């Protein structure tokens, strides 16, 4: 049985498509039956529509990529009206990923999503690609505590808080988010990195820094997931560089209830299916009946 329960929501399997890499699911339905997924986390939403960042938005690096999309999205209202109805029909858990730059915006957006049919609210306090304050939330535990507390009051949806690997102290951050009312923790978002175009002698990105994702970050992401699993009691959804079923099992053995697959979706559109089938085959081979048997087993 690959099914898992994340703060009261039953996922048919632990594989969730990560925010920002899977749109609202529609683009991928041409390539595979997206109902195979445990869940889909939407493109990061903000209260108002956003055009995102100017300039180059993507740069490939060794075993990874850097992005500076900057939360381009239609806004929560348009999401609820235009995208959510389709997502509902996909027969998989719908996770709304919410970003922002002020507490007020987060709260107002959360209130709107609270009334919608989403299954889980994933609070992104960690987007490195938004200039105005977005990052600070994800770095200092005390700031995170405040924002999670306010959003908690605004919604009765299961609240999953997504942490940044750039946090000063990832465990302290996770503990504070839980104290403030998080029902689950997901991590990691992208690592802050930079790239320089040596021909033009300028940073590749207008914002100078951008977010690094993909296989390159896996060892660090796995370490953070392991540490967070050791210090909070809520379910943890691990991610960062997962591209094979072996990677997924590593995150589960480190203590994750579920995992998210981001950048790897760009390698092969149905890679999540390969990962799901790989997990099933591994469980069969090793005689594992439920993922609980191996969850956090390395502790």
């Amino acid at each position, binding site marked *: 049985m690959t099914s898992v329960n994340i703060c009261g929501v039953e996922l048919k399997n632990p594989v969730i498509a990560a925010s920002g*890499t899977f*749109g609202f699911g529609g*683009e991928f339905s*041409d*390539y595979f039956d997206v109902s195979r997924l445990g869940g889909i986390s939407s493109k990061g939403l903000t209260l108002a529509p956003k055009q995102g960042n100017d300039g180059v938005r993507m*740069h*490939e690096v060794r075993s*990874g990529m850097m992005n500076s999309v900057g939360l*381009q999205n239609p806004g929560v209202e348009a999401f609820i009206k235009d995208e959510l109805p389709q997502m509902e029909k996909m027969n998989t858990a719908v996770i709304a990923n919410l970003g922002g730059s002020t507490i007020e915006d987060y709260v107002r957006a959360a209130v709107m999503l609270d009334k919608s049919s989403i299954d889980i609210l994933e609070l992104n306090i960690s987007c490195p690609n938004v200039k105005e304050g977005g990052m600070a939330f994800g770095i200092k535990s005390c700031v995170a505590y405040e924002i999670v507390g306010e959003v908690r009051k605004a919604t009765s949806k299961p609240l999953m808080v997504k942490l940044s690997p750039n946090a000063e102290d990832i465990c302290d951050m996770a503990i504070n988010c839980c104290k403030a009312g998080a029902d689950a923790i997901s991590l990691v978002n992208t690592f802050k990195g930079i790239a320089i175009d040596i021909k033009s002698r300028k940073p590749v990105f207008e914002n100078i820094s951008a977010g690094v994702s993909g296989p390159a970050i896996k060892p660090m992401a796995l370490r953070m997931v392991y540490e967070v699993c050791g210090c909070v009691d809520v379910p943890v959804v691990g991610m960062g560089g997962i591209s094979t079923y072996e990677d997924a099992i590593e995150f589960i053995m480190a203590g994750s209830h579920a995992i998210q697959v981001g*950048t790897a979706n760009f390698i092969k559109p149905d890679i999540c299916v390969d990962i799901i089938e790989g997990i099933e085959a591994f469980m069969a081979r090793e005689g594992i009946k439920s993922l609980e048997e191996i969850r956090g087993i390395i502790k």
Partner: protein
Amino acid sequence: MKSKYVEAAVYKNEQISDCVFRLSVKGSFDVKPGQFFMLRAWGQEPLLSRPISVHDVDDEKITFLYHVVGRGTQIFSKLREGDDISLLGPLGNGFELDMLKGKVALVGGGIGVAPLNYLYKKLSMNEGVEVSFHAGYRSQPFGLECIQGSCSLLNIATEDACVGEKGYIIDYFEPKLYDIVVCCGPEIMMSKLIKKCEAAGVPILVSMEKKMACGIGACLVCTCKTKDGNKRSCADGPVFLGSELILND
């Protein structure tokens, strides 16, 4: 014309000019000119697949023309018959053939001629279309096999004057003589030609090359600024009307 992810085998891969190769892949594909595929001929590294336009299609194979510029295209250049390659596509909007009527000018710069070849082939089968081809190169021309001898008007310019006029093709190109212009080449060339066409009041279609990750419209890294907001060049493009685009400089 539904897009798919397929694993296929190389039919042929040959060098046709300095750093330019022609790659054919076995299989039957239904493609619109101007569409592209995300190609991958490696396991793990580089991480992302590479977007390459369709240069030609026939019943048994699809052909790409590519310039070797970095890690991915270098791996392509080493492919041999029978090697594995995966293709995701066809992707993108492609050229709307219905828009291309009357006197149509195809203007290519360097490797930008790649998609124009297949467009030319399709257009020349249509009634009431008179196609001319204008191609600019740094040095030796390439990718004109189908066009040479068949196209009633073929203009070539090369920066080193080794063939045709000396200099940039767009300096020898007069938009006023055409009903519509199609351009594919370096961004700087396309933006200059857009201005020239705008001044002449002639509509122009261009194919934008942005760095891509997913290729299918999900990740939003490939956006172009348009008067109608940001558009994804992989899914809403790569073909845009010159008049829609907001180009920097």
